């Protein structure tokens, strides 16, 4: 069974130490994104990927933050462009690293919601807080469905974690899979990873 190693408490210290000794914050990253939203550069957003999954699962190492966004288009325009986001954040001191923009010390990848699955995931995102800063995280079922569609090894690992830890509502996930034409990918995933598993 694929299962990412979480961390070794002997080298990282106790959970309490880990919680209280972090050196820089995603909190600052989220504050910048919230300001950008308040200034009208982006519409609704939600955290996805590994950081989003952390809302439901145990923390697992990741190098970046995936943020799905609604990007306002100009009247009559159809093309989604990330330029307004990059221009805004660069003016605030953020730097570009490949496909990421580094905000508050964290590389962030902005992903414009571009299809029904992603738009639905944004619409149904869960409001939460990081310390006292408000933010949104995709539902576990949408995170799993997007991971299924993306289909890399690490995405399959994440789906397995969701299933093994009972973090997804299987009925809701099944409805999302059907609604967004992912039944074929789910069958392949089941065949490869779940056959022979109980429950």
């Amino acid at each position, binding site marked *: 069974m*694929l299962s*990412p*190693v*979480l*961390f070794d*408490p002997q*080298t*990282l210290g106790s*959970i309490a130490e*880990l*919680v*209280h*000794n*972090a*050196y*820089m*914050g*995603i*909190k600052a990253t989220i504050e910048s994104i919230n300001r950008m939203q308040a200034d009208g550069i982006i519409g609704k957003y939600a955290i996805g990927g*590994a*950081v989003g999954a*952390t*809302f*439901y*699962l*145990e*923390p*697992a*190492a*990741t*190098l970046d933050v995936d943020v799905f966004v609604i990007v306002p288009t100009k009247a009559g325009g159809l093309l989604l462009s990330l330029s307004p986001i990059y221009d805004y954040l660069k003016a605030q001191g953020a730097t570009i690293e490949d496909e990421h923009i580094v905000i508050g010390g*964290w590389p962030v990848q902005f992903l414009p919601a571009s299809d029904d699955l992603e738009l639905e995931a944004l619409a149904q995102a869960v409001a*939460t*807080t*990081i*310390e006292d800063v408000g933010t949104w*995280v995709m539902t576990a079922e949408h995170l799993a469905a997007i991971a299924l569609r993306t289909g*890399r*090894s*690490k995405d399959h*690992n994440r789906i397995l974690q969701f299933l093994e*830890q009972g*973090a997804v509502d299987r009925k809701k996930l099944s409805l999302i899979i059907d609604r967004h034409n992912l039944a074929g990918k789910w069958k392949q995933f089941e065949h490869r990873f779940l056959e022979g598993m109980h429950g």
Partner: protein
Amino acid sequence: MDKSKMRARLASLSFSEKIKILEKLRERDRTIAASGLRKKTKPAGTDKTDRLAEG
């Protein structure tokens, strides 16, 4: 504490607490990368997926 209990305990933490752990994990990853230790054990071009699986 066995692994499944540890995982369950970590999963039950608040999002804020889990984010701080995630930041600590990243700090460790960066420290290891800066030390050059990873180059001795992993070939060039190793991607993020490999590193995640490696833990």
